[in-house]
Every structure is written in structure tokens, then in C-alpha cells.
């Protein structure tokens, strides 16, 4: 049985991720999903999104450009009431995301009419 089905292994970190509704439909997941990172791995936007895409390959190219891995222009990233969209993808995520108290939010930006 996988660690995710039992809850996180003691040496792994379980990161909560919330996707916008269209991507939940595409990936066939509920409101919130969890991805696990090894305890020694940095918890950054890049490592979390890499884990999300590894678990749900259909999301490759929908959040980040498939070739450059840059954030798609109308997708934004929030956590702990902060807009992380313009932060370095390799910057550490807030501790509350790392320890599972807060989710990492992928949001479709307000745009259009």
C-alpha cells in the first residue's frame, strides 16, 4: 500500500494542493489533493508542481508551459494569503504549507469579461 493511502510516511511531507475547477475535472480529482515529497527534498513551487504533474500527467502544460515550465500567464499561485505568482519557483514555500496546515492554491486569474 502506498504511503499516500495510509497517510504520509514519517519521513515524507504531504503537501495539500487545491486546483481550479476545470483542472479538477480534467484530472478527475476532488477539491483538494495531496502530493508527497521526500523529507530531504526542498518544498518549493517547482517541486510541488513537479509532483502534481507526475501524479496527474494530464495536467502537464495546463499550469506551466510544457516546454519552459513557466507559469501560464492567467494562472496564479497563492498560499497563506500571499500571492506567490511572481516568486522564484525555487523559493521555499511557507512553513504552513510544508507542514500541511495550509494548502498551496493554483488559481485561474480574474480576466476577461
Amino acid at each position, binding site marked *: 500500500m502506498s504511503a499516500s493511502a495510509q497517510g504520509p510516511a514519517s519521513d515524507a511531507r504531504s503537501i495539500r494542493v487545491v486546483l*481550479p475547477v*476545470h483542472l479538477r475535472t480534467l484530472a478527475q480529482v476532488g477539491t483538494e489533493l495531496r502530493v508527497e515529497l521526500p523529507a530531504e527534498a526542498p518544498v518549493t513551487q517547482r517541486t510541488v508542481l513537479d509532483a502534481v504533474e507526475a501524479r496527474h500527467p494530464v495536467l*502537464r*502544460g*495546463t499550469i506551466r*508551459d*510544457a*516546454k519552459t515550465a513557466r507559469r501560464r500567464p492567467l494562472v496564479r499561485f497563492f498560499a497563506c494569503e500571499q500571492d506567490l505568482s511572481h516568486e522564484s519557483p525555487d523559493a521555499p514555500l511557507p512553513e504552513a504549507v510544508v507542514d500541511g496546515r495550509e494548502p498551496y492554491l493554483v488559481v485561474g*486569474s480574474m480576466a476577461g469579461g
Partner: protein
Amino acid sequence: MSRIRVLAGTKKGAFVIESDASRKDWKISGPHFAGWEIYHMKASPVNPDRIYASQTSSWFGQVVQRSDDGGRSWEPVGNAFGYVGDPGTHQHFDGTQRPWEFKRIWHFEPSPTDADAVYAGAEDAALFHSPDGGRTWAELPGLRGVKGGLWQPGAGGMCLHTIVLNPNDAKRIVVAISAAGAFRTDDGGTTWKPINRGLKSQYELPDPDAEVGHCVHHIAAHPSRPNVLFMQKHWDVMRSDDAGDLWREVSGDLPSDFGFPIEVHAHEPETIYVVPIKSDSEHFPPDGRLRVYRSRTGGGDWEALERGLPQSHCYVNVLRDAMAVDSLDPCGVYFGTTGGQIYMSPDGGDNWTAIARDLPGVLSVEVQTLR
């Protein structure tokens, strides 16, 4: 007993509309992929239950969906569209050069002989090929070598929207790109040449006879005579009898030679259909009357078809990929509007009826005749 399946891509999802050969009672399923723009859906001629759908969003990019059961269920396949090498730059609206950047797929063209092979036309303009049912895609980069740096976007983007496969010669492919023109390969996509001789763009280009830069809206061909091409251009309806080497104008007595779709009758290769709209700045039918125009002489002489279509206060448009024919006898003609209606004629255009009235704006219509 034959059946008809209409594949409609709209601004907010995909719809599959089916009838038996009587074409009287239509059953609509959908929306599939609700809320997403579906630029195009098209089925394999070899395996009619295999349908490709271009699911696209300004927010979340491109998803290629495939159905292997006639549109009842769908599976996302490959969405990795990468240009070969350093793609360089092309002209932008402001005259500067911009890097080539993939945005979406406008058109799928499945192979007439191989159920796993399919071409895709992209924005920014490029032609991609998949040999494995859409799981992986590879660009045919020679196309961009034909003065690609001079191509610039049309109002809808710099899109490759038309792919005409020659059923008698797998190495001959014709494509069209908005505000770039028409191009042809005779070696399966390795080398390409512009096929824009005879096109004139006196109000849009400094050189009206330029080799590239013409705004081609759509090209159609009849399978029995694939080297006879019909083109709806930004202005002008054109015809070529030599696979695009030379074009001549056949706008004739049309009330406006501006429009987007052009289609050929299933059994009469000299019978063609267009939907004129008033101008490039007023994308609606002249006099608020929605009329399809038919020529039975391969262009030049046109008749207005209006029976069953709204003849007052109608201000919809019909987009380039939103017209198609079935292959029953008599031939059925179908088109979708930006107002969300899909109209069908069971008799080659003489009489029309709406088979759907309140869909989101229709982006594309394809029709399958299932035996």
C-alpha cells in the same frame, strides 16, 4: 441504414448531434468539456468512432481529447507541441519580431488511410503530425522555412487553420495560414512552397501580389478532384485548377466576396457554398439576412439560398471551420453560427432548418455519414 453524426465545437464545450438518414429528428449530447473552447473536432475516415477534439483555454492551454467510441467517452492524449530547434521569430502586429510560441490547435485532419495518423494545425502557425493517435506530436518544420519571419497574425491569431490531404497522393498537402497565405508540400512535408500566385491583396499589402502575406480564410477540395481548390479569402473567392499553382477569382455576382467558410458538395465537385458577410469590419450578413450562396459552376455564378434561414435582423457570423456536408444523396449541408444555431439543409441547400438553436457560439462543424 445510414446515420449522421454532427460534431460541433463551441466557445463553451463540444456537442455531438445525431440523426438517422431521414435527418428529421436530432438528438444532442453534451456539453463535453463544458466551459472550454472546442476549436475543432474531426473523426478518422478509417475509424469513424475515433474523434479528435481540440480543447483549449486562455487560462489552461491546450488539451487534446480523443474518443474511440463515437464521442460517448473521451481520453486526454498528448498535448506536448514543441517547435523544432530554435523557432526564431515572426512579425507581430506592431511590426516587431516575436518569438514563435505555441498557443492552441485550430484544426485536426486525420489521415484518410491510417487510423493512427493525424495532422494538427497550430497557432502560432505550424503543422504537427502524430503517428500514434495523438499521443505524441512532431512538427514539420520545413513549413516555417518559407519566409516564416514575414508571417504575421490575423485578428484571430497567427493560425494554421486549413489542412487539405490529397487522397491520391499522401505526399501532397495543402495548408493555409491567416495573414500568411497558402502553402503546399509535394514530398510529405519536408519542403514547402507558397502557392499564392493570382491572389491580390491591394488594400492589405504594400505589394498586392506578394509571395506571402495574403489572408486566406479557408480552402476546400472535392475528394474526386483534389487538385481543384476553392478558397475563401479575406476578400475574394478564388479557384485553382492546378493544386494552387495559379488562382483566379470566381467571386462573380456575390453580394460580398468577404466571408470565412467555403465547402464543396459531396457529389458535385463543381457545386460550392459560401456565406458572404458584409465586410471585414462588419462581420454579419448583408442586410441582416442570413443567406448561403451556391454556385453550380465552380464559381462565378451564384444563387442565394434563404428558405428557412432568418431573413431579418440576423447579425451572426459563420466561422471558417463551421460548415460541412454529409455524403447522403441528396447531399446535406450544415453550418453553425456565432449565435449558437446549427442549420441543416437535407437537399443541397434549397431548404434549411435549425437542428440546434441555443448553443454557445459555434466555432466548428464537421459531419460524419455513418454506414
